[in-house]
């Protein structure tokens, strides 16, 4: 690891200020992403500002909203009874993420800032536009079993690594930030950016902007939700394909639907057309299959990952069946 300086900030403002004045400074909370990437030489911050002391880790329900402090650990949120009851797909996504130790370490804010697991991105020997614009994308024409079937560009076909982000995308969560320019509230749908020709820019966050909390607006489709994750081994693995899905079903008819896919795109992949196709339809296998076909309509494999198109469609059906029968 390149030598760096370290500071413990005492409040969010101090943390933001410390990072703001140094273009190469980073925040650190759990450390599970940034230290891993620093060891691989992918990230080389000059200063790490430890934000663990700047705020609490509470998960608070107020009326129809749950606010999750950005410093809450993945395991805190996964274990929270309100989350489990009102947003099961969030709890499910977390419980299927990483390992118990990493869930105890990683903060919610940090989880959302996780970077891709593309092995070319992590191997500084391989050309990667995300690491350095213009170098090329090694995954295109390379080993791309785990890569994107949606949203990729000629410069990047990576997939986003976070399970939580997929659930939050489906939940229409809001990410609240605290930055040099003040506070902001950003919808998850606006938070993650497609690679286009700037795969190095991954989120709407500005330098030194710190995630302070994530809020969920509770609704029946979130309460009746699930997270299906497909992978090679039973635990401790990133998704090949995942689906966060929720439905409000009244009298056998779907009133509202939420669907987002993971492991298929550089960002959590919400599929509004498929959701719209479900509304007003009976909660039946035929409806689910049709929605899955719509969800995958624009998908395109790049060789090693061609199987993901059919797999993701089946995973959508599976997720909808789970909550269809639960309702």
């Amino acid at each position, binding site marked *: 690891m390149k030598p760096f300086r370290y500071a413990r900030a005492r409040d969010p403002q101090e943390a933001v200020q410390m990072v703001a004045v140094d273009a190469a400074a980073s925040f650190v909370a759990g450390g599970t992403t940034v230290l891993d990437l620093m060891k691989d030489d992918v990230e080389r911050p000059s200063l790490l500002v430890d934000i663990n002391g700047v705020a609490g880790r509470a998960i608070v329900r107020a009326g129809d909203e749950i606010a999750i402090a950005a410093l809450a650990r993945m395991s805190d949120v996964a274990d929270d009874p309100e989350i489990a009851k009102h947003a099961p797909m969030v709890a499910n996504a977390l419980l299927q993420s990483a390992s118990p130790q990493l869930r105890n370490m990683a903060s919610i804010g940090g989880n959302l800032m996780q970077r891709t*697991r593309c092995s*070319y991105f992590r191997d500084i*020997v391989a050309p990667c536009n995300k690491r350095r614009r213009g170098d090329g994308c090694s995954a295109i024409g390379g080993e791309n*079993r785990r890569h994107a079937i949606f949203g990729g560009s000629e410069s990047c076909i990576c997939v986003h690594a976070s399970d939580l982000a997929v659930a939050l995308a489906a939940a229409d969560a809001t990410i609240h930030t605290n930055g040099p320019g003040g506070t902001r509230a950003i919808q998850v749908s606006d938070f993650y950016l497609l690679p286009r020709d700037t795969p190095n820019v991954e989120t709407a966050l500005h330098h030194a902007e710190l995630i302070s909390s994530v809020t969920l607006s509770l609704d029946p489709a979130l309460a009746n939700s699930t997270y299906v994750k497909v992978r*090679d081994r*039973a635990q401790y693995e990133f998704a090949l394909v995942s689906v966060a899905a929720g439905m409000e079903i009244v009298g056998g008819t779907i009133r509202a639907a939420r669907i987002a896919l993971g492991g298929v795109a550089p960002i959590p992949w919400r599929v509004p057309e498929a959701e719209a196709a479900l509304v007003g339809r009976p909660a039946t296998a035929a409806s689910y299959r049709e929605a899955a076909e719509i969800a995958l309509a624009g998908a395109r494999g790049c060789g090693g990952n061609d199987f993901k198109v059919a797999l993701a469609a*089946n995973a959508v059906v599976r997720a909808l069946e789970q909550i269809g029968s639960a309702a």
Partner: protein
Amino acid sequence: MNLPLVGAPHDRLDGPAKVTGRATYAADFSPAGLVHAVMVTSEIGNGRIVRIDDAETRRQDGVLAVLTHENARRMHPEGHGFAFALMLLQDDRIRYDRQPIAVVVAESFEQATYAASLLRTTYESEPPITRIEDSADRYTPEEIFDEPADVTRGNPDRAFAGAPVQFKATYSTPVEHHNPIEPSATIAEWEGERLTVHDSTQGVTNARKRLATVFGIPVSNVRVISPFLGGGFGCKGAVWSHVALAAMAARAVGRPVKLVLTRPQMFGSIGYRPRTIQSIALGADRDGRLSCIMHDVLSQTSTFDEFVEPSALVTKMLYAAKNVRTTHTLARVNAATPTFMRAPGEATGSFALESAMDELAYAVDIDPIELRLRNYAERDQSENKPFSSKSLRECYRIGAEKFGWSERDPKPRSMRNGRMLVGMGMATATYPTNRAAASAVVRMNEDGSVVVRSGTQDLGTGSYTVYAQVAAETLDIPIERVRLELGDTDLPPAPLSAGSMTAASVGSAVYEAASALRERLRKGEKAPIEARADAKPQEHERYSKHAFGAQFVRVEVDPDLGEVRVRRMVGAFAAGRILNAKTARSQYLGGMLWGIGMALHEVTRFDERTARIVTANLADYLVPVHADAPDMEAYIVEEEDPHVNPIGVKGIGEIGITGVAAAIANAVYHATGIRVRDLPIACEKLLR
């Protein structure tokens, strides 16, 4: 013989040290003045180094030395046999991805790691060949483990042509890496021309010899110490480049040096299971009786050295057939030299052969166990010798009974658990019984306590415990009075802990030494007293020696998502005398779990354009985690073998994995109707 046929399930004597963190592995030692070395490895898979710019590296705080091919001393890295050729910075040639090209030594680990990252290497790249299919550089090796590479009996081609039932298929297995959780680690220290090495090695005696050769110093000048080993599985058998590089670095800085491989470097220069493509042809009558077996194996080796994955050795003897042909062909690719990995040959070969037997069982509509019984080999037809013992029928019977094989409806896709497709599969397990020369000293002190000394190792196999049991039982004293000293070349020499031969080799030596001691005590000699045995295998074997077993597996397959989860495994194994029922069961279970990884998870993927490994970490190279483990049962089938060696033991470390991948593939076929002949059985192969 005082030893029971199945030894007491004694707790491991090294257990308390291991659960309290007191067991010391190679990287845990810290001799005074210790400094840290980091190996730098190549970024290309084929070509040459044009220049290594080390200016920035040398400028860093704490840096003591930078070794490259431009300044490294001339060494003797040449390979011969299983002493594989080493990459000791002797030239500018790059032969494979992650080949060592430099070593950086600094006061601290952090300094060395960072300084190493600043080395700037310019290469001249040449297009690599990564896949054996693409390699035109193919040849037949002269021999495999002292046996001919190609063996024919009868006239297999004619027999096949005339067979009423003909079955042919091609199976393939990928490159796999051992990935013990302890990375390879070496601490090297020189005192003048004397070298002391703490090394994570499966063979201190072997490592000592190799280091002496590499450095051109007398064997007696080298001491290798390895009291505990964090798993090896074959990759710590041969001495690899980093061990010598650590010693070279220690010599360069005149201080003890610690060099620990990073996890990505565990995919570099320490061997791996090579990729195989195996063609099987079976000729049988309509009752399933085999007239012919042909097994042709293509596997990879490096461009500069040889390792043969002996996949077809098992085929020569496992089933009765008059006409058999087995061949092994090597293809050179731009990759490091492969090596032994848990059941080399048997693991890959049994996947092909035992899958093919399952396919034949369906072709002739006979139960897979019945098919195997109809082709039961009463003697080893390849060597034309009787087996020293063989209890495979018992293994089939006990395994089938414990597993509930009779509940299986053989029709594919006929069994379900909710939406999950259920499959049951079985396969035969087998592993040869090896033995090598080993020495041991057993000493009784005045207080009646006993010390057993042998330069063997404990890889987790139970050496500390089982040899104490052998000594205690032979001397008829409580095991609590016995202490083991091992893992040090100052002790009597012992072979590599490999080939499942340690119990047969070292166990026989300890038994003979303890027996001699008992004899002398009986004749009136008094403690302190010690006896030494130099035990050797017979030169001319009258028997064919193998352990056998049967594997049974139940899987559940998600028909829509292609996920395969193993739910239950039962193994029944007959391997002669068992020294400790508890540690033996653990070894069997461990091997069986390895079979799950082999069948479902493990694959080293390469970028074919660069020959670079793209799965060089434990997030991308998947091995089974606890949630992948099914309910597992391993049964010891009692077997008395008076011929195999003085203590009647066969090896148990490797047989556990053999047959498992086939049993799982067979179960997946039973569940889904889809035959997967290419490992691993990933979900995309099951999506229809």
